């Protein structure tokens, strides 16, 4: 009875976490291409001094959209929506996420928000004040067009998706684990997803408040950011970075999670210092809530206040370092097989160490004040974001490709793609350290030829082109492998976690029998897997009376109750459509029509709750 509706209607009404994960995967790749195109256009413009390929207004929209797209429409939805949705239930022995309809809703809202944002760009009103959109530049006085409305409403809209997804992921990891999976037996990937989701849940409200203040200031004449009437321009920055700093740790922690699964798989060794790695995932996000004003060291805030943030910034490095040592020593003491996924992880460690070191340099307030707003900062965060967030995503694509598609990828092409991308990204981002120290500012659409920056910019643009080639090789490899790769066995890598115990691709219901759990490496617990085969044969723990799922207790994973899961439903996409209409109409300030859409939204939510689980 766990069968999906066929055809397009099946995809539009799906609530299955694997299908929702795939929808996220393809959609985020489209946005990745858009963000990449924006980057390549900028690199083309900067390849020559005094270039006239792209004018300043367009350039402003390009770097703003590039930042927003890559962060909110690529990395977050790829890590939480695609990888998180697909693999969390599999790794904890569940048949779906805790709230399957909410899961689908998160996707459709995410898609709607992306279409909304890009309509802004294509109608000439793309956000243009940077991804961090400082006031007063973003105020009505200096940016009178609709551009900033697309910014504020687009991010508010997108934020709803992430908030709902976080609630789903946290509840799933807390309550839907197979019995026996106490907190100490949760796979490290799930700890990472838990950390990222908790971070999103507590960070997004600050951004939402900031965006509402901005919308009100711009459209209804409020004065939150207006010092002439009791407001404060720094208020924007405080709230933005209260969100923005945890956000960047949220970007990278899922990547840590992917690394902590790939390393044991390709070294056939359990992760060294498991409890420390688990707590480090959570600590880096938690301490990350206390560092935000290190983005404001150059704003004139008294040092009496700044030292709180400098202290936390210095210490936030420690959990990351613990992880780097754990990963490295696990690789050194294991039987390492340098296949493509592990290569991407080693590349990730290299990038992360370099990016982390430059990050620690920013703790020194005087140094920070020197290089703020220069390309040195761009170098730092791209080493972290591209090297340390995107490399594990690529590694994860290769690692789980056999499970998701049922085919093996081509190994030599995979290794080639790694080396080209590794070379390209180093060429692209390393010279930015130097040119930043030489004084080249950020967010400039061109530069004079006599500053000594030209050669570095040329190298960077070449590096960008090489990176593009590498990614084309990667995606071509995955595409061709999908069509013509060798059929994949259930367990090609002898990986540690539960997804390697079920067929490739997994059936709708994931597990025919709810697995017995004795550790965080269940696929390596031979006697448990043997016991599962026995139980299946005897019909024990099969839970096949409808769409059944077992719920367990929070800390110790004792069985608590059996619930019915929803199946396909039209309500998520209908609610998302109503919400899209609401935001679309707000951007043109038709508040009356917006109210109509709000009523439609309420009706759709009522419809959602009209059928209870036992009635499905």
């Amino acid at each position: 009875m766990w069968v999906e509706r066929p055809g397009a209607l099946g995809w539009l009404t799906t609530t299955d976490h694997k299908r929702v994960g795939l929808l996220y995967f393809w959609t985020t790749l489209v946005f990745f291409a858009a963000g990449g195109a924006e980057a390549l256009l900028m690199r083309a413009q900067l390849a020559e001094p005094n270039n006239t390929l792209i004018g300043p207004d367009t350039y402003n929209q390009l770097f703003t959209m590039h930042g927003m797209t890559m962060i909110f429409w690529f990395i977050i939805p790829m890590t939480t929506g695609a990888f998180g949705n697909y693999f969390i239930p599999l790794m904890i022995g569940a048949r779906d996420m805790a709230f399957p309809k909410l899961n689908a809703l998160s996707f459709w809202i995410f898609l709607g928000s992306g279409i909304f944002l890009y309509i802004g760009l294509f109608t000439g009103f793309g956000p243009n004040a940077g991804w961090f959109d400082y006031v007063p530049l973003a105020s009505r006085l200096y940016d009178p067009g609709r551009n900033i409305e697309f910014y504020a409403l687009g991010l508010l809209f997108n934020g709803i998706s992430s908030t709902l997804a976080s609630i789903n992921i946290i509840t799933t990891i807390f309550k839907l684990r197979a019995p026996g999976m106490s907190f100490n037996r949760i796979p490290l990937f799930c700890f990472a997803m838990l950390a990222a989701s908790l971070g999103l849940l507590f960070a997004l409200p600050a951004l939402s408040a900031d965006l509402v203040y901005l919308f009100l200031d711009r459209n209804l004449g409020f004065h939150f950011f207006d010092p002439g009437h009791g407001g404060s321009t720094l208020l924007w920055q405080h709230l933005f970075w209260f969100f923005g700093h945890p956000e960047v740790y949220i970007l990278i922690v899922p990547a840590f999670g992917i690394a902590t699964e790939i390393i044991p798989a390709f070294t056939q060794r359990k992760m060294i210092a498991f409890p420390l790695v688990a707590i480090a995932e959570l600590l880096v996000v938690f301490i990350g809530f206390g560092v935000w004003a290190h983005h404001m060291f150059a704003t004139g805030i008294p040092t009496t206040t700044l030292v709180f943030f400098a202290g936390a910034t210095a210490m936030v490095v420690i959990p990351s370092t613990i992880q780097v040592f754990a990963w490295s020593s696990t690789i050194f003491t294991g039987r390492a097989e340098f296949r493509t996924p592990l290569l991407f992880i080693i590349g990730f460690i290299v990038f992360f160490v370099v990016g982390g070191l430059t990050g620690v340099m920013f703790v020194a307030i005087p140094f920070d004040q020197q290089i703020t707003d220069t390309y040195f900062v761009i170098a730092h965060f791209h080493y972290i974001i591209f090297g340390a967030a995107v490399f594990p995503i690529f590694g994860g694509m290769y690692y789980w490709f056999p499970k998701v598609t049922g085919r093996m990828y081509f190994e030599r092409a995979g290794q080639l793609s790694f080396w080209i991308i590794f070379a390209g990204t180093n060429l692209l981002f390393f010279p930015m350290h130097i040119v930043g120290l030489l004084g080249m500012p950020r967010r400039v659409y061109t530069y004079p030829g006599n500053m000594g920056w030209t050669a570095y910019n040329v190298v960077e643009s070449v590096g960008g082109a090489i990176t593009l080639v590498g990614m084309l090789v990667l995606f071509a490899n995955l595409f061709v492998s999908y069509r013509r790769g060798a059929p994949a066995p259930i367990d090609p890598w002898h990986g540690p976690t539960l997804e390697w115990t079920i067929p490739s691709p997994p059936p709708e219901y994931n597990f025919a029998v709810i697995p017995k759990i004795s550790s965080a490496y269940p696929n390596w617990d031979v006697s448990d897997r043997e016991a599962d085969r026995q139980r299946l044969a005897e019909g024990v723990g099969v839970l096949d009376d409808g769409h059944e799922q077992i719920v367990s207790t929070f800390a110790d994973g004792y069985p608590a109750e059996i619930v019915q899961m929803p199946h396909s439903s039209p309500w998520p996409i209908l609610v998302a459509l109503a919400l899209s209409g609401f935001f679309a109409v707000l951007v043109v300030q038709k508040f009356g029509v917006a109210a109509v859409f709000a009523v439609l939204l309420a009706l759709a939510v009522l419809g959602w709750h009209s059928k209870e689980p036992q009635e499905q």
Partner: protein
Amino acid sequence: MTLRRLAFLQWFGILGGGTVWFASFLAGAGVSQAVCNPASGRWGIPHDAVQIGITAFACAVIVLAEIASIAVFRATRDVDEQDPPPHGRLHFFASAALVSNVIFFMVILLAGIATVVDRTCHQG
């Protein structure tokens, strides 16, 4: 030690440190902002004394959290962190808390000393 007491000590050990750090950080940064902004003149807040008080309190709580974690760690020292619940879970959280409390202690101390030593309200 009873299981109830072990569980209480375990949760205090893992959550107490972070909670008191975040609270003391908000309080400390908040006090420094209150003292260094226009409206604060009439309130006469003794900046350094308040910061020392906050730092001392937070350090004391963290030390207690660390002691609690050590107690649980020692009570479960024969347990492996992958062992069945509840003792495996207790040992796991205690191991983690041993390290996290030290990190939080260092953050509190770094910031607490710096904010007092620094010239109050000197512009950054």
